[in-house]
């Protein structure tokens, strides 16, 4: 590990019994980039994210996230790293502001700063009108946007997004992708997003990694992978074509 990237892993492995969920994963994510982590369901994407957050212990290998070992110092990592799980949950009997306030308290954000941040981020995700409604009444898209606001309340340096657009309608998906894009460009937040929706990843990601059956089979900018897999002459490609080639080989 060189200590340069915001995320670095070395031979990171997680085994559940005889089954290997993540096999010797070595990757490096630079500060400020949007990294797309691709792979079919059950490829080990979520397990990788959990290991990087210190929520599950790797069987072997090393990881450094924002300079800390997540297994040994999970507290330091969680202070500055946001995580939006797939199908994020809320306390449905509380309104959006109460939900955000609770998370802010758990992050030791002082009271006055909390209110300012809540107003700001609700505005950013387009929920300031609905801030006082019970979250139980929210649509899927609104919940997902509230999830983003909740992650941003602690002003993280790095955010893990696990399938952020799954189950959203086309309009919701577009708003989500725009939001993710602007976070990276305007707020300089590093984003690590896992997905299997390839056209969306292609639209916003700087680099991608393809994970199949626990193995990272390819990593790099999309154009580079296209050259490698589809031939030099091709200019009109989609990520899906590249992905399917890797998938068939694996």
């Amino acid at each position, binding site marked *: 590990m060189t200590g340069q990237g915001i995320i670095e892993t070395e031979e990171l492995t997680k085994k559940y019994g005889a089954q290997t969920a993540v096999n010797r994963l070595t990757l490096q994510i630079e500060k400020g980039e949007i990294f797309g982590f691709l792979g079919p369901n059950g490829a080990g994407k979520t397990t990788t994210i959990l290991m990087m957050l210190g929520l599950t212990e790797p069987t072997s290998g090393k990881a450094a996230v924002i300079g800390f070992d997540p297994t040994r110092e999970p507290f330091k990592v969680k202070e500055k790293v946001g995580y939006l799980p797939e199908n994020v949950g*809320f306390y449905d009997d509380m309104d959006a502001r109460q939900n955000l306030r609770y*998370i802010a308290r758990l*992050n030791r954000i002082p009271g006055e700063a909390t209110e300012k941040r809540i107003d700001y981020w609700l505005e950013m995700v387009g929920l300031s009108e609905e801030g006082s409604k019970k979250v139980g009444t929210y649509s899927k898209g609104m919940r997902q946007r509230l999830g983003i606001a909740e992650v941003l309340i602690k002003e993280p340096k790095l955010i893990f997004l696990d399938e952020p657009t799954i189950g959203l309608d086309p309009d919701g998906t577009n708003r989500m992708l725009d939001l993710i894009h602007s976070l990276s460009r305007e707020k300089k937040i590093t984003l690590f997003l896992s997905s299997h929706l390839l056209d969306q990843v292609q639209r916003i990601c700087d680099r991608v990694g393809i994970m199949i059956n626990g193995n990272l089979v390819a990593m790099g900018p999309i154009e580079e992978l296209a050259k490698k897999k589809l031939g030099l002459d091709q200019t009109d490609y989609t990520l899906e074509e590249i992905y399917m080639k890797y998938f068939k080989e694996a």
Partner: protein
Amino acid sequence: MHGIFTIFRKELGDHFNSMRFLLISALIVMVGVIITSMVGMAIQEELRGMAKPTLIFLLLFTSTGKLFSFVQFIGFFGPLLGIFLGFDSINRERVSRTLSKLVSQPIFRDSIINAKFLSGVTVIAIVLVATVLLISGLGIRLIGVVPGVEEVWRLVIYIVISLLYISFWLGISILFSVVFRSTATSALASLAIWIFFSFFVSLGASVVADAVAPVSQTASGVDAEMLIRHERIQRVASLVSPMALYSDATTTILDPMRKTTRTLILMGPMERFSMSRFQSPLPLLESILIVIPHLISIAAITLLCFGICYFVFMRQEIRTV
């Protein structure tokens, strides 16, 4: 510590806002008031024109009246309060997917389970103290006797024992909420355990006693030694039930006329008053000495239960969280 405090505050708020908390505490208060007024009026009636016997105030809690005493009621119904407060504490968050969010915040993982247990214990303490104070107030009005220092101390010890006992059931239900993913399963499992320990252990105890020390009829009648042995084994076996442990401890501490932890010998208040002329009550210190093993046992099972709960929760794979 910060994490514990934040979660504790939220959980406490949730408990006080929840319908089932209002329901069960209203029930406990209501039954408590009904029992006390019945018992209070009976005592008032019987005391007319008599010198007031010592430690009369505690009779408010231990007299059975027409139905059952307040102490018996809490022994029977108290576990439900604990179970209601805890049975969905972890798996509710799991079902609504808030648990994985919670553990990814900068808090220690054990602060979640600690805060949930502590908030439950706090609610139980509030309900118990409020109910005992309410009954005392009502009793003072009804029988016109102010409790002495010794009686107040006995009531304080009673509250501590009850708090530990109900917290044990809180621990059981939180344990099930960690182990089972469905809230219905954990509720039913807790209730099943409650019914088993409250009703069936005493039956089981006599079976055990019959098996270990059978009482056989001989030509010369029943051997006394044999009977005593049988009784002893039955008593020890029944102590497996936390309810037996609790009712032994509380009746001893609240009823100083009793010299042992044996189950209550049914006696009307009049017999009791007349007996009190000849019998002196057990001093507070002696009563405490008798119940200390019970107190420690209840504290131990409560802590053990919470310990298992803590261990299981901390060891759970986050995937299943």
